[in-house]
Structures are given as C-alpha cells and as structure tokens.
C-alpha cells in the first residue's frame, strides 16, 4: 500500500536532526568569524576556557531540557541557582562536617525546590510557567531572610573551587567533566530507560501516557526535582568559580538556558529533542556571549544582536508546520 518510500533513507533523515546540524554549523561560523577579529579565537586555551564557562550553563540546560520535553518550563532557575550557591557556601561555615557536605547540600536544596515545583505542577495542576514563577519568588524570599537574618558565610569551599576552576586531568577543566557526567546521565536516562520514554510520551500526549498505565505525576515530579538539582549544582559551581556566592548570581542564566535548549532543536511544546542538540545550543550561546564581549560591543548592541541571532536561527529551523 505504501509507495515503497525507501525506509532506510527516511530512517537516516530521522536520526540526524537538522536543527542539531544547523546549531553546530553556527558554532563553526561563529568561531571562523571571530577568528577574523583575532587569532585567539581558535586557540586551545580560549576554547577550553569557553567550555569551562559553558559547563555551568550546560548543567542547568540539562535539567531544563527534561522539563521542556515534558511540555513544561522552569522559571525558578534564577533563585534556585542562587540558593544552591548560597547554601553550599553557608554550609562551609558550619564546621568540618559542613565543609565536607557543602556540595551535596547545595544540590539537595535545589532538589527540594524542584520537588515543590513538581508537586505544584503535577498534583495541583497549576501551569508550570506560573507555578515556577511563584517558587522563584518564595525561594528569593527565603534567601533574603537567610542572608540578612543569619549573615552566613559566602566563601566557597576548596572542593567547590576545584570542581569549578581547576584542571586536574589532562588539562581539561573539571567543570567540563562535571557537565559530561551530568550529560551522560541525562542521555542514558532519555534514551535507555523507560523513564526517558515516559518523558517523551508525556510531552507528546500526557493523556495517552496516563491511560497506558504510566504514573505521569511521578515522572513530572521527578523531572522537576532533577532540574532543581541541576540548578543547585550549577549554583555550587558558580560559587566555586567566583569563590563566593552572591544574590542574583542566577539571574543571567534563565533566558540563555531556555534559548540553548530551544536552539538545540528541543520543541518548546515538548515531546521532541535530543541532548546533542542541547550541547550544541549551550556552546553556541556561550560563544555568542563571549564573542560579543570580546569585541567590546556596548551592552545595548550585545542585547540586540543576541535577540536577532536567536530569531535568525529559529527562522532557519525552528518553525512549526503549517496547519493542515
């Protein structure tokens, strides 16, 4: 009945997402274009430095990707990142045990915030955009209280600094290893486990997933918890990178994280996307921001170019199919 469309070719076209190709293509273009300005852009040192910085965004984007695949969004990133950093540094001021547990505590706080998000979205059925907004506000309130009321330590621990800045193995930044670990686990989760299939299914059609016997609420809570943990971990890394935690440290990461995920080919409506694309999107955004600052473009120009580039790339491959 089918008009013998070559199945092999169709399968090949399916496996190579054009969005991912376009994203990597843009990365190459950016590097080449930047190299016209300065040869430094193609130096190993510069690239490693960029990957180090990209790792922070990459960790956040991993969690965001899971949430977006479900068809949801997480707007609590700014203050959950800040909380991760601040609680980790605060724990460092609690004695020996605190120093040892600083990193897990930072991550744990992120997971806790993520659980709250998950319960609100999955059980209370509040749209994720608005609920995570509320969580963001509450977490902000808690941190304001915490810092003003307790004057906690804001210096990071040695361990935090090591994983964020040092290059222990083969000259590769440790932060990159952390991102690789998070990324590897994310890929495994998405492609090899039933949980990953459930995520794509819920993003596609939650009703069908529910009627197939999947505990969709647990999956949603789980994804938000993981996303919260990723944000917390990123906060820990950021605090380690700048050796201190400060308010609003998470603010610059919300929009780039979402943009990175979408530019990597993940549909904002959910149900479609690959982690490779997210990696490309993260590197792309990081490079873009870096190049714009190196050429000493004023802030106004940077913002405009940032927006124009995102739209241009989405016009290339982020378009929805026409109705009918």
């Amino acid at each position, binding site marked *: 009945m089918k008009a013998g469309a070559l199945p092999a070719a169709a399968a090949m076209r399916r496996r190579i997402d054009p969005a991912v190709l376009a994203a990597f293509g843009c990365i190459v273009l950016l590097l080449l274009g930047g190299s016209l300005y300065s040869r430094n852009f193609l130096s190993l040192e510069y690239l490693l430095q960029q990957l180090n910085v990209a790792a922070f965004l990459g960790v956040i984007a991993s969690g965001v990707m899971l949430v977006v695949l479900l068809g949801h969004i997480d707007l609590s990133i700014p203050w959950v990142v800040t909380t991760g950093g601040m609680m980790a540094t605060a724990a460092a001021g609690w004695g020996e045990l605190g120093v040892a547990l600083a990193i897990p505590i930072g991550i744990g706080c992120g997971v806790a915030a993520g659980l709250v998000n998950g319960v609100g979205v999955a059980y*209370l059925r509040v749209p994720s955009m608005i*609920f995570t907004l509320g969580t963001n506000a*509450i977490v902000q*309130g*808690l941190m304001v209280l915490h810092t003003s009321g307790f004057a906690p330590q804001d210096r990071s621990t040695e361990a935090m600094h090591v994983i964020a800045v040092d290059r222990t193995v083969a000259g590769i930044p440790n932060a990159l290893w952390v991102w690789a670990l998070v990324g590897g686990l994310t890929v495994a989760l998405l492609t090899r486990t039933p949980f990953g299939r459930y995520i794509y299914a819920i993003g596609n059609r*939650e009703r069908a997933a*529910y009627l197939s016997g999947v505990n969709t609420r647990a999956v949603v809570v789980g994804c938000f918890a993981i996303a919260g943990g990723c944000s917390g971990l990123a906060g820990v890394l950021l605090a380690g990178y700048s050796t201190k935690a400060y308010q609003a440290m998470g603010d610059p990461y919300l929009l780039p994280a979402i943009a990175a995920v979408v530019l990597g080919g993940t549909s904002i409506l959910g149900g479609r996307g690959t982690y490779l694309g997210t990696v490309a999107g993260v590197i792309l955004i990081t490079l873009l921001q870096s190049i714009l600052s190196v050429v000493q473009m004023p802030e*106004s120009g940077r913002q405009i170019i*940032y927006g124009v580039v995102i739209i241009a790339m989405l016009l290339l491959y*982020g378009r929805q199919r026409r109705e009918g």
Partner: protein
Amino acid sequence: MSRDWRFRLAEQRSVLLAAALFIAMFLLYIGKHPAGLTANVASTAANKGVLLALVAMAQTIPVLTAGLDLSVGMVLVLTNCLASSIMVGSPAEVALGTVAVLALGVLCGAINGAVVVYGRIQPIIATLATSSIYYGVALALRPAPGGEVDGALADALTGSLPGGVPASLLLLLVVVLVVWLPYRRSVLGRAAYAVGSSAQAAYMSGVPIARATLLAYVLAGLLSAIAGLLLTCITYSGEASAALGGTYTLTAIAAVVVGGTSLFGGSGGAIGSIFGAFVLRTIGDLLFVFDMDALWQPLFLGAVLLAAISLGSFRLIGVRNRLELYR
C-alpha cells in the same frame, strides 16, 4: 430568559471573584492606612495599580490566542525611554511625541506578531528574543537614567480629578472603553478567542487566524506603550532597567492568571486581568501598611503569589473523572 443570566454569570465568574478579592483587600488597606482614603493616597495607589493593569491587559490579549508575550515589560521600558526624550516642548511637540511613543509600541507589537505568524516561531521563545532587542534599543536611547516629560501632562495623568477620583483611573476607563470593549466585540477579537480555543478548528472554520494573531500582538504593544507613557509621567524620567522590565512581564502574567484568564487560551479577558493587577498591587501595599518587616516581605509576597495562583486548583478537588486533568 433566566437561563440566559445563568450562562452570562457563569462566563464572568472568575472576573467577579477577582473583583471581590480586590475590593476586600483594598478596604483592608484603607482601613489600616494612617491617613485613610485621601485623594493623595488614592492617586498614588491608583497610579501603581493602573500601570500594572495596563501591562496586564497587554499580556492578556496574546494569552487569549494561546500565545504569550514575554516582551511587554521591555516594551514598557523602551517606550518609557523614548517618552522621556521627546515628550517635552510645545503642546504640538508633546502631542507628536505621544503619537510617536504609541507608534513605537505598535511597531514592537507588529514585529512580535510578524515573527510569530509569518516566522512561525513559538511565542515564548520569539518574544524572549525580541525582548532582548527592545531592551538593547532602550539602552541605546538611555544609557543612563534621565530625561524629562511635560509637567502639565504628567500632572494631568497622575493627579486627581475633582471629587478625589484619580486621573489614572479615568485613563484606564478610557482605554477599556476605546480599546478593549470594541476589540472584544469585533470579528478579529472573537477570532483571537477562537484561535486560543482550538487552532485546528479555527482553521477549518475559516477564521482569519493570521490577522487575528497579528492584531493581538499589535494591541499588546500599544497597551504596553500607554503604560510606558504613564510610567514616564509618574517617574518624570526614563530608565533602561532590565529588572523593571522583567518584573513587570512576570507580574503581568500573574495578574492575568489571578484575573481568571486561562494560559491555555480561549477564555478570560482584560477586565479580569485589571482586577488581578489591582489585587497584586494591593498585597504589596498591605504589607507596608501592616508594618511587616522588610526582610519578610519578599517571602510573604512570594507565598501569597503562589497561593493566589494555586487557588485555581481547588476546583480540581471536585474532579471525579481524572481524564479531565490530562490534555
């Protein structure tokens, strides 16, 4: 005919709820305020409330089409910066300046609409990108806070009318009568509801989807520009503040939800969003008037915001067929 009233009432239920909530809170606020309901107190409260209400109205219209405009806050900031530069001089110049500011808002809305309709890019990410662009232009216009605005106009819009009624409330009323109500009754206005209700069915029914969506974003831009004008009149200056823009965008979304408009599109309206905005504004004022420790205010505000938006989920407690919960 009694069936008619039951249907109409059911349609307006969430608006009435938001209005009742606001009235209750405002009475509490006035009761606790040391000065009571003076013209000054009223106009200060009204100015802040109307400002947020206008941005909330702007946000409502794209939301009706099941879209979103994350750039309303930045259009507010951008038009504020422009207004602080050109709304001075002779009455003719001020009038021209006003038109230019509104036109800028319309232009921003048209760009948003074009990217969403012709570029076929999802509204969330499209308006996220354009908000960046508008912020950049605002920064270029006003690298540092400053500027001025025609004093007479500012006083007129932010002061009180005879009888103690705040002028800004009159402005809001005019906007509702001239922009919102005609839009709601127009073919393209209803088409916006249709698109949000079911884009597929709207297409099959021959609804002018492209024009309706475009107009929705244009109106959002226009309303944000009116808010920008008002902001300039309140602060007598222009400032390219990313924080302000971001806060207004997100608070406007909260106001839309509290006012009963569904983020999934197809139902709700700007009047509910106005009351939603008033409710949110009054909460902040209430905290101030009840002498809440400044340190506790952000947490309390966040908790109240979360509670307000979770209120809608109470209707889910009665849901007996769980299929209704899942799309």
